């Protein structure tokens, strides 16, 4: 929090770097998703990995999430938000994995189920 005024009269390096990185990541993600022939799951991991990195960039470089006396709260709050987001999205997908095939796979082991279960396991 100290020497703010000094820091801020400088050139906005943080912003420029963040901006450049986000452009690079966007283009890379597009390239991976559309113009390569990696396996679907590899693509998914990569593009969502990039998305999370970009989100972190915005939060840290542009939104100054960690700054001010409340930085800790802001970070904790955002992380809990992401925890909720992951639980809701992956949880729903996992639950409905058994229903995608119109109930034909009711043998307790729907395709992809096991993989997803690992994901939600990590979120506790």
């Amino acid at each position, binding site marked *: 929090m100290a020497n703010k005024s000094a820091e801020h009269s400088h050139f906005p390096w943080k912003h420029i770097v963040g901006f450049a990185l986000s452009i690079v990541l966007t283009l890379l993600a597009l390239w991976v998703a559309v113009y390569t022939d990696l396996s679907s799951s590899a693509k998914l991991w990569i593009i969502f990995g990039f998305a999370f990195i970009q989100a972190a960039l915005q939060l840290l470089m542009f939104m100054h999430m960690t700054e001010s006396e409340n930085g800790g709260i802001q970070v904790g709050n955002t992380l809990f938000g992401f925890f909720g987001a992951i639980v809701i999205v992956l949880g729903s997908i996992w639950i409905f994995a058994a*229903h995608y095939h*119109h*109930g*034909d796979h*009711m*043998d*307790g082991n729907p395709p992809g189920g096991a993989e997803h279960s690992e994901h939600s396991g990590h979120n506790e």
Partner: protein
Amino acid sequence: MIFLFRALKPLLVLALLTVVFVLGGCSNASVLDPKGPVAEQQSDLILLSIGFMLFIVGVVFVLFTIILVKYRDRKGKDNGSYNPEIHGNTFLEVVWTVIPILIVIALSVPTVQTIYSLEKAPEATKDKEPLVVYATSVDWKWVFSYPEQDIETVNYLNIPVDRPILFKISSADSMASLWIPQLGGQKYAMAGMLMDQYLQADKVGTYEGRNANFTGEHFADQEFDVNAVTEKDFNSWVKKTQKESPKLTKEKYDELMLPENVDELTFSSTHLKYVDHGQDAEYAMEARKRLGYQAVSPHSKTDPFENVKKNEFKKSDDTEE
């Protein structure tokens, strides 16, 4: 004395009520009176859990009573036990964290085992070919189709004993739940979905089955009888039905799609050649439209059946409102 009574009151009330119900009520607790292997597994699990729960409740109640009696404020008569400095006790806290953890583990293991085993045909008869029955809920009736026998029944179900029944559960409209307590737990019936459930009866008899999931106005009446009969009786019923009962025409089936109660019906063909509700979620809605049924708010003065042409199956006593 009065204090002791007060402190013990919850306990007394509970004990009293329990006695009353164990004597009077439990004898017809259908869930705990299983007539087949599936319900039996569940009933065993329930009894096991009740045991653990009674233990927990017992511990808490005893502690509760002792503490209340011992540390109540006796005006003026200080027995020297008061000690406001206590703020915790690591050993005790570990004890009442670890014991519940152990109990949860002890309950989880059989729970998970049962969950997995209920997905399959019952162990005892697993080498017998299951009888396949399509159970379809339509507001407010149950349609049972026997594809191999080419038979369809409405609002009742005949099954052979000692043979697993593989239900293919689905719904034509709202989300219902197929439940025959004495044969086993329920599963939802949903349009556009086909779900498997194994049930089995071990004893000849008539059991009650119903929709357990709220589906609107006449939900309470969406019940059916399950007649568990010997394999021989079942086969002769099949033969008789195939010979004597009428065929199910598409027109008749469409009329069944109307939201109302009907009596028990029997046909010598199934609706499966017209529609698979497990694939087609919209069939019933379209049939209603075709027949001129118009859904209205319950407070509307319009009769939803106003424009409906034919109405063969309407239950005779279903005239209220």
